[in-house]
């Protein structure tokens, strides 16, 4: 089953340039929008003078918050247009509507906004102090989350060694190749919005709230999406709402498309964290206690911060048995650009800290770092930090495969012998990860997916879901599941475009829930079709339905080759006999108990595990790091398509290399400085060397056909594996991300006994 790869359903259109992205769409009489943004991190809008802008030829209207018929936003969320207070340098204040992009741009430059500057705060710790400028509420606290198990003080008393460390992770940009865009077309019945988003129903909800219209009157159509990495949810909702507002008020189609600079200045980012870890360990390597304090920067608005911080606190100890845990995580409002969901969603930050910590503990105790992970790693029936009895734990299998693939011990020994007198040194490091699948019981919102199948008269199938194909191969996964259940060729299954008018709500394509949750919904839909078809076929063949097998486009009795009929014939029979050829699936993961006060309970119904190793080459003279080899082992439950799995791993590793070494969104006094890709540096093909994906398949109890999600896990362990390899090469550690030229050179020189200012 599923051993051979199938052609991705979206690949031909994309490779041949036939795929239509939102910016490719054209409508008669279309208008263009440009946003006027507040350049100040915190300011009250005193007045907006539209006169000069309206005098420009081609400018049709200048819209402000007072034009919004519904809500500018939910409390503490980023407004579609600022009603009074702008909370970061990027908040939209006015919207210029014009006959051409050029007129819209000129109009935006001509709008005069008068501001009263308010005191701003940029550092989360400063923002918590009494008397700090308030961004929201009366204390700037955006969200808090705790995990408390056992007695950490007692645990520290038992320890032979206590280590305290601080780690800082930085703010990074999603950088999908397609910036934000939306087109709204007013219709007699309502509004149709064309928008690339990973959360079509959520974006529709935001538009409906903005426009004070019933959700059913907003039709959201998802054209081809040029990547997301978590960014195209609320950000897309803001754009879609702006376009809808202008379309409704002008009665004409309206397009809004961001330049890269606008995208980087306005859009949400990954949360920067400051993490303080205190950990106790016995001489034999057993962890006794861990105390974790996390303070994160939520930026100007709430967004998904409560869910991000909740996941971070749950996963803060890493995939290890720690008898006594006390984790307190807090996220704070500042006048920085907003933090929100980004691939990994609170996992990469804590995976970074906990894996650097494990490595340093191993080093201090003189225990091999891989062995140290085995000593403490979760196993079946281990208790997690939240007191959950873990099942189906595959950390050891992942470590086994990692050990084999990279030849851990012998390579370690070889590197120990290397000549370290020159300017080039090598290092080997590893990191493990685990991650709860989907939203979990700790409350990332209700978790469900609907999906529908219609078998056509000729036996071909149309598949309806809200799965957003953001480049991850989600549509191909759905086709594979249906193909496996019904025994028909993938090429006979057509995936409907996502259109909220027709497709069931499958929830958003986030949280590594595509395969797990939407995959299960489509499996149920396929099983419903199968049951209905088995009944019709059984009647035709004169057998009982349960005797039938669906395979190779046929429905047959394995015991009697003469009892066989083609799938397409049964499809035709359904229509002839007025039998339903539809299947509908609705699936929701099991929800466990959760004690929010203590952060104890069954945080997630299932977990994925992985182990990675990086071999780096450091140029000590220049501070330059090359990741020469990266081995990424991930348990995917069941690989529904091996090539897709390898591709997703390679993508995640590349993204992780950027996170570890070069990506860095520079913000000074609330103003983003790295606004395009000349300064915000993503890795290029020349920065990515050998990536070896290794697949572990331990079937999941819940996933469709045993599959587990992979989108986010592939990102988590990359940076810590690289930083541990750097430490191995240097003999000293970089604790803060990114490990850029300056950070590495500084450590390299310190290691050689040279001061950085000599």
């Amino acid at each position, binding site marked *: 089953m599923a051993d051979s790869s199938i052609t991705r359903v979206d690949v031909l259109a994309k490779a041949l340039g036939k795929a239509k992205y939102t910016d490719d769409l054209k409508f008669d009489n279309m208008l263009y929008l440009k946003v006027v943004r507040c350049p100040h991190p915190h300011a009250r809008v005193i007045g907006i003078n539209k006169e000069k802008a309206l005098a420009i030829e081609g400018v049709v209207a200048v819209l402000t918050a007072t034009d919004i018929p519904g809500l500018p936003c939910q409390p503490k969320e980023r407004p579609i247009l600022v009603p009074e207070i702008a909370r970061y340098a990027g908040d939209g204040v006015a919207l210029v509507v014009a006959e051409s992009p050029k007129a819209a741009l000129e109009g935006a430059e001509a709008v005069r906004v008068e501001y009263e500057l308010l005191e701003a705060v940029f550092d989360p710790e400063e923002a918590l102090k009494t008397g700090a400028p308030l961004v929201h509420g009366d204390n700037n606290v955006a969200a808090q989350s705790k995990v408390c198990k056992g007695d950490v003080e007692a645990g520290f008393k038992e320890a032979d060694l206590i280590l305290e460390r601080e780690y800082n992770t930085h703010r990074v940009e999603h950088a999908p190749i397609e910036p934000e865009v939306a087109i709204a077309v007013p219709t007699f019945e309502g509004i149709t919005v064309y928008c690339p988003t990973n959360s079509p129903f959520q974006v529709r909800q935001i538009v409906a709230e903005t426009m004070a219209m019933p959700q059913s009157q907003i039709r959201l159509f998802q054209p081809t999406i040029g990547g997301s990495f978590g960014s195209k949810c609320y950000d897309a909702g803001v754009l879609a709402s702006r376009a809808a507002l202008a379309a409704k008020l002008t009665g004409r189609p309206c397009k809004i498309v961001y330049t890269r600079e606008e995208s980087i200045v306005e859009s949400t980012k990954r949360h920067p964290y400051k993490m303080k870890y205190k950990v106790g360990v016995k001489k034999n390597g057993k962890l006794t206690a861990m105390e974790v304090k996390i303070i994160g920067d939520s930026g100007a608005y709430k967004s998904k911060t409560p869910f991000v911080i909740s996941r971070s606190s749950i996963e803060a100890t890493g995939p290890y048995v720690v008898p006594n845990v006390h984790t307190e995580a807090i996220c704070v409002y500042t006048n920085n650009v907003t933090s929100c969901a980004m691939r990994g969603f609170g996992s990469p930050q804590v995976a970074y800290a906990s894996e650097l910590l494990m490595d340093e503990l191993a080093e201090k105790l003189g225990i091999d770092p891989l062995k140290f992970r085995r000593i403490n790693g979760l196993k079946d029936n281990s208790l997690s930090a939240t007191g959950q009895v873990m099942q189906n734990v595959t950390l050891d299998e992942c470590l086994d495969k990692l050990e084999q693939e990279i030849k851990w011990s012998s390579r370690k020994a070889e590197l120990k012998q290397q000549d370290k007198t020159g*300017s080039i040194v090598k290092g080997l490091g590893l990191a493990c990860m685990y991650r709860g699948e989907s939203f979990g019981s700790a409350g990332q919102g209700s978790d469900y997916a609907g999906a529908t199948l219609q078998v056509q008269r000729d036996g071909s199938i149309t598949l309806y879901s809200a799965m957003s194909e953001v480049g991850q191969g989600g549509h191909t996964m759905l086709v594979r599941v249906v193909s496996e259940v019904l025994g028909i060729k993938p090429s006979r299954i057509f995936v409907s475009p996502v259109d909220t008018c027709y497709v069931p709500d499958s929830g958003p394509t986030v949280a590594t829930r595509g395969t797990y949750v939407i995959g299960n919904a489509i499996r149920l839909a396929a099983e419903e079709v199968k049951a209905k078809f088995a009944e019709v076929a059984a009647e035709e063949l004169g057998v009982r339905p349960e005797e039938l097998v669906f395979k190779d486009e046929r429905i047959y009795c394995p015991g009697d080759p003469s009892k066989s009929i083609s799938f397409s014939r049964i499809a035709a029979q359904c229509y002839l006999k007025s039998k339903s050829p539809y299947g509908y699936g609705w699936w929701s993961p099991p929800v466990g108990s959760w004690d929010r006060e203590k952060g104890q309970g069954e945080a997630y119904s299932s977990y994925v595990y992985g182990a990675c190793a990086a071999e780096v080459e450091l140029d000590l*003279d*220049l501070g330059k790091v090359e990741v020469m080899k990266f081995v990424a082992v991930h348990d995917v439950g069941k690989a529904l398509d091996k090539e897709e799995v390898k591709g997703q791993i390679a993508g995640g590793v590349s993204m992780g290399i950027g996170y570890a070494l070069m990506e860095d969104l520079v913000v000074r006094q609330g103003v983003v400085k790295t606004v395009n890709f000349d300064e915000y540096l993503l890795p*290029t093909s020349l920065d990515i060397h050998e990536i070896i994906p290794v697949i572990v398949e331990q079937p999941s109890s819940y996933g469709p056909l045993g599959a587990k999600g992979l989108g986010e896990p592939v990102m988590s362990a990359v940076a810590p594996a690289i930083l541990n390899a750097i430490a191995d090469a240097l003999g000293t550690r970089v604790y803060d991300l990114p490990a850029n*030229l*300056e950070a590495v050179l500084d450590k390299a020189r310190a290691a050689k006994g*040279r001061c950085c*200012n000599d």
Partner: protein
Amino acid sequence: MIKEYYQPLKLAEALTFLSVFPGPVHILAGGTDLLVNMRKGQIKPEGIVDLSKIEELKTISQEGDNLSIGALVTFSELAAHPLVQELISVLACGAKAVGSPQIRNRGTVGGNIANASPAADLVPVLVALDGVAVIAKQNGLRKVPVAELIVGPYKTSLEPGEIIIRIEVNVPPKGTGMAYKKVGRRNALAISRLNGVCLLKLEDEIIKDVSLIIGSATPTPHRFTDVEEYLVGKNISQELLEEAGVMAREHVLAVTGKRPSSNYKLPVVERLTVRLLQVAWKGDKAYA
């Protein structure tokens, strides 16, 4: 707003256009800097003269001890040219260090000089080779060393109506060691954090001649003559190169003073200098 876009086939036509066009006019060669700056709104030309169809500016030829490089030669063409590879491989290294294949296919040697970025990848090589820019205007030619033509960051002494038409560089004597290195934050599409070039001629282990530049370290690229003079006439040794490294670092500090970037750049200038000299001395390839 652009009122006139002119794409002549002859240099003379371009020069005439420049001399008569009334408003601000910019010269388009590869456009890899011009178009970016226009998009940012940093420059607003009314006239553009596009040199890309002028064939006479695209040749590379050897004239005696000189190699003449047309100003419209692209980085890709320069890097691939047999004369360059045979005579001055370090030029090819500098050209290959630029941006990405797309940028190298469009960006030109003349444009790299005229843009005068302190972080230019090729300019330090041209300066190290004592490159001379040949500049045309409607009624004549003048020749200016590249090092003098660039007077500050993004500033040249080019006057309105002038076009760089070619660059003449010395072909180093046979047996000259060469080295080039770029330090960027990533391996392609990077703006040089630092770069450097070194030409070294030895006779019986005595340094007869040396040309050394660390680029992106000072506002304008120039030969580190104090270091060069110290080295010439001395017996080459690792110790000597280490001394040169320290001198180069002091040279940069003297030019720039202490800056936020000094913590990184100064120690790297020192090591880079030592490595460039080592490669020029012993290396079998020019890329350090």
